[in-house]
């Protein structure tokens, strides 16, 4: 019975932890499917987390925070777009530049505006996206298994978690069932053909960057206004990179990416639960080793799956119109 309670708690925190990861991975997916490598997910998330926390702290509204977070992330996405599309610059250098810039800018502004050593004020519940209890969750909680899962695993998350999971079918539908999605995928595989068909590669790639910016903005906002209650220095803590790895593991496809994110989130939740626990035979694992788990898992997974084969063919290659 105790095992079952553990499992329920673990599943619940898996969904929580998966929220920013999933949104960022989908952002990376939209961007790379259109042919632009986006290693700046980390920076965009951090910027959104800071903007959202600041706006929420000032206005007292999580919605104002979310809007500010999305705007900050979209702005950075457009900068990355300008570098990658118009300037045909190196996309990895551009992404790293954004990550470094935000890592410095967010605490600088936080310090100047709030004078709290690079943090934003702690947000009260009215300025956060708080946990939502799904309809009938309380009445169903006594039903064995199904009720338990419904009320203790699925219910009780912030709205942004539900947005994250709903984004998966939406992104999949847009990519595979709409004309826009077809063009977006084509521009990542063979931009010359798209241009020949009379469709603007530049416009499509900018649209992809904006979608990625919005998704990444929600991801960052969820860090500081849903999972946390305010901005802390370096709070994205490598989630942007993990998201990128999850997307590669998910072979640039929405549903496998979801599964990869759930796996990473599960390991992350597990490492939280393992801290300070005596395991049979092994004993207590030092916390530094449990922290390594998601990163080691990523390396093992990438080693096991040759990721190159499924990458969009034009990904990372600047497009030159008059060749």
């Amino acid at each position, binding site marked *: 019975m105790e095992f079952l309670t553990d499992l329920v708690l673990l599943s619940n925190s898996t969904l929580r932890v998966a929220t920013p990861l999933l949104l960022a991975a989908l952002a990376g997916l939209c961007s790379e499917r259109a042919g632009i490598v986006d290693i700046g997910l980390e920076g965009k998330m951090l910027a959104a987390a800071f903007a959202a926390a600041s706006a929420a702290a000032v206005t007292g509204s999580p919605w104002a925070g979310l809007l500010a977070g999305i705007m900050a992330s979209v702005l950075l996405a457009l900068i990355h777009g300008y570098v990658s599309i118009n300037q045909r610059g*190196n996309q990895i250098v551009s992404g790293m530049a954004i990550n470094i810039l935000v890592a410095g800018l967010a605490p*600088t502004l936080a310090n*100047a505006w709030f004078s709290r050593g690079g943090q934003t004020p702690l947000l009260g519940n009215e300025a956060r996206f708080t946990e939502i209890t799904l309809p009938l969750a309380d009445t169903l909680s006594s039903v064995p298994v199904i009720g338990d899962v419904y009320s203790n695993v699925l219910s009780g998350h912030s709205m942004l978690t539900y947005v994250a999971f709903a984004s998966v079918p939406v992104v999949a539908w847009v990519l595979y069932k709409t004309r826009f999605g077809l063009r977006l995928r084509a521009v990542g595989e063979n931009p010359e053909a798209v241009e020949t068909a009379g469709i603007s590669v530049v416009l499509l790639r900018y649209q992809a960057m904006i979608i990625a910016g919005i998704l990444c903005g929600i991801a960052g906002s969820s860090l500081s206004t849903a999972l946390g209650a305010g901005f802390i220095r370096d709070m994205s803590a490598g989630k942007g990179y993990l998201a990128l790895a999850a997307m590669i593991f998910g072979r640039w496809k929405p549903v496998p990416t979801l599964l990869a994110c759930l796996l990473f989130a599960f390991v992350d939740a597990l490492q939280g639960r393992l801290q300070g626990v005596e395991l049979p035979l092994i004993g207590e694992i030092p916390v530094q*080793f449990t922290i390594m788990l998601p*990163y080691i898992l990523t390396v093992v997974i*990438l080693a096991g799956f040759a*990721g190159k084969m499924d990458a969009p063919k034009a990904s990372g290659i600047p497009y030159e119109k008059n060749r």
Partner: protein
Amino acid sequence: MNAAPKISGVVSAIVLPLINLVVALLLSGFVVWLIGEDPVAALGFLIEGAFGYEEAIGYTFYYATNFIFTGLAVSVAFHAGHFNIGGEGQAMLGGLGLTLAVFWLGDVSPLLAIIGAIVGAALFGAGWAYIPAVLQAKRGSHIVITTIMFNFIASALLAYLLVGPLQRPGGQMPESSDYPDGIALTKADELLELVGISFEQSPLNVSFLIALFAAFAVWFLLRRTRFGYEMRVVGQNAEAAKYAGISVPKVTVIALMLSGALAGMMGLNELLGEQLRLIGNFTLGYGFVGIAVAFMGRNHPFGIVLAAILFGAIYQGGAELGFEMSKITRDMSVVIQGLVILFAGAMPHLFKRPIDALSARFKTRGNV
């Protein structure tokens, strides 16, 4: 006729980076203004803090030493066609190798310990690059992702060792015991005194010369050796290299290990030059900035040395700026670095067209 391409070469190597640098500084000034400080005064503090007095110059070149190592590391990998973003982790492991060597050989002989430290730093740095390199060469695993993951793993590993087996006995901080007495790289002021020049004390030490030698060695490797040539062929066209009979996986792995060794040697400056003990996260993002240094230096060792001095100046001047202005913290220097990377690294040709147009106009006027 022959002069034309040469001028545009100078333009692209010197004028364009300078314009990009100025734009990055202007934007940094905007940030300073945004948080309510005077940008002009800030620039003054930055330059004064970086070059204003002997100690400042010493610090600038001390930080530049770190950036030469990490910049060369990124560059060597890039010449072979790969992005080594793992400089942070490789430097951490390099620091570990260096420390182990010092403790192991410290009682035997100081000279041996220092040689051991150099070898240990390079070896451990190369070793930490080896796994991502093999995974890239044999399995096609994305090296950018794996090296980033190895940064996180290295950081956790060091954190474990420094509160566990390697922690100073009885200490509370995540740091090792001090290195045995006398095992340190000679400081610049001591060295200059030998030739009769007095120089204020600063952390600048012999590793700056080692870094310059490394830059020369990289240039020699790339331009004067068969292996360097193979590396560049692989970097430019792996398919063609394969048909030319070059073993692409072998060249990839060796190039990335060389890259890791260079990153690993950063610890010589930080640890054996100044801290004299192993401390957690001593790499402070230098590995990442190496990407900018490499690109700003156009992946040429000489350019990398110049770019490293520039970033050293930003780093040192930024730190002074944090002391002088109440609303500005050390994070400001990270902002400036980010902007310099964005403009000089990612958009090297941003102002190419206007400059070309301008020089074309001058040229036609000259012909008339």
